[in-house]
């Protein structure tokens, strides 16, 4: 009986946490249909703001930019991450291995602002023009370590004699990679790709530093619009993005569930 009472209270607490977690998002969604033009006082239903989003060419180009950067950067960082994970895995000396891992994790724990500032210096020094290229390179750079961390545990649980057997049977390095290793670490690769995708879509601070004039991603654009105050087309846009996020989440969930460990979303070593 006592346990029963505790059960109720705990659910109340959880529900309260969930309400607070979802309140801001629902608030944005609800007011995206407000004809009043402000985020208070609901005047009536309208789809005007959605129309405005779809007729705002600048905004649409920025959305497109954001997705192009996200897709390319996660693709490239996944490839580099696979290479990195295999490289670390093959190092035999324990000290070299942990040194490499520490270096790998620097960009994960480094504050975003520091990454952004240091990349800005780097690009200026080598004379790279700020814009699409610098943003893409930065996103690849900061996504690689998380991909490595997602793939490494998979490599570690792989039986090394699989690779030896393939080699004994005459497989060359490329065959071993594509026919033995990649199929085995597939779930880690997908998880890494999705993490890289969310990192890229979500990044603000680093992009803000290296974006220059002329090129912009959604986060940076929302920031500059939000500083000017409330505009309900941002709400409409966020509703659309939220729906897209849900799609991503479902995709990620299906992949990790097959993997059996959703907590890997939290990326642990």
């Amino acid at each position: 009986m006592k346990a029963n009472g505790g059960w109720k209270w705990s659910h109340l607490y959880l529900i309260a946490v969930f309400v607070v977690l979802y309140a801001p998002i629902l608030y944005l969604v609800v007011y995206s249909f407000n004809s009043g033009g402000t985020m208070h006082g609901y005047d009536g239903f309208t789809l005007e703001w959605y129309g405005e989003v779809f007729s705002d060419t600048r905004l649409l180009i920025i959305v497109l930019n954001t997705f192009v950067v996200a897709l390319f950067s996660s693709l490239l960082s996944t490839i580099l991450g696979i290479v990195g994970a295999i490289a670390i895995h093959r190092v035999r000396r324990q000290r070299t291995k942990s040194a490499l891992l520490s270096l790998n994790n620097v960009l994960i724990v480094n504050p975003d602002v520091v990454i952004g500032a240091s990349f800005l210096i780097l690009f200026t020094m080598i004379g790279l023009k700020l814009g699409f290229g610098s943003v893409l390179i930065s996103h690849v750079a900061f996504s690689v370590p998380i991909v490595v961390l997602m793939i490494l545990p998979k490599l570690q649980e792989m039986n090394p004699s699989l690779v030896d057997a393939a080699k004994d049977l005459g497989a060359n390095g490329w065959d071993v990679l594509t026919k033995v290793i990649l199929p085995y670490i597939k779930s880690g690769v997908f998880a890494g790709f999705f993490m890289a995708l969310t990192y890229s879509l979500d990044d603000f601070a680093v992009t803000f530093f290296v974006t220059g004039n002329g090129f912009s991603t959604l986060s940076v654009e929302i920031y500059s619009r939000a500083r000017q105050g409330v505009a309900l087309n941002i709400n409409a846009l966020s509703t659309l993005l939220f729906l897209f996020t849900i799609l991503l989440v479902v995709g990620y969930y299906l992949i990790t569930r097959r993997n059996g460990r959703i907590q890997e979303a939290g990326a642990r070593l």
Partner: protein
Amino acid sequence: MRTKSRNFYLAPYLLWIVLFVAAPILLIVYYSFRDIEGGWTLGNYSHFFTSVYLKMTVSSFWYALLITFFSLVIAYPTTYLLTKTKHKQLWLLLIIVPSWVNLLLKAYAFIGLFGTYGLTNELLEAVGLGRHQILFTDFSFVFVSVYIFIPFMLLPIYNSLEELNPSLLHAARDLGASAWTTIRRVILPLTIDGIKSGCQAVFIPSLSLFMITRLIAGNRVITLGTAIEQHFLVTQDWGMGATIAVFLVIVMAIIMLATGGKRRGAR
């Protein structure tokens, strides 16, 4: 044969490390010794140890501590209760979903929620507490930051609670421990690693927040992150900005060494 294939994978990865891990940090250190005209100087460091920056550092640490503390206090019980529910994987996913919504959009939502005529003030008025200035206060800054960082605190704790062997809890109960004693003497010590990782994952980024300070705290709160952004993108004093960045990198390294070893990802 083996050595050859190993080198093949190591080379591109090492190139990445050199270009994007080592070089940026070295460049930051280099710039911290340069003045605006491009000459060598120690002036940035002596400037950093004046009262303006020391105050800023202290207040950054204070806010980061507050944010970490409240995230832990809210996330720990949530996670604990979460692991007790039937469909914990689904609940966990539901908690993670909001963290996948663009950070900027969530901050923007709070501009509406906390505004003078926003929902929060409507609720306050409805229960008879009257309208208040919520936006642009310390409260709103800490609240929004905690809101954004909660998932980063929650996931490592969830992982450590999942690893906890339930028979230990049964044993504690069989030996006559009260619920509180079990939590204090068994569960907390065994999940301390998760707590450490969570605190680390929240504390370091909250030291250097600058977007939330600008949007939610309206420049009332100036953290080290805000100062770096200011120096790099507004006043163009890269030397001073780099000096603060060097300080943050050192703090980060100390925290990592102090809490020891393994890390988690996600920002």
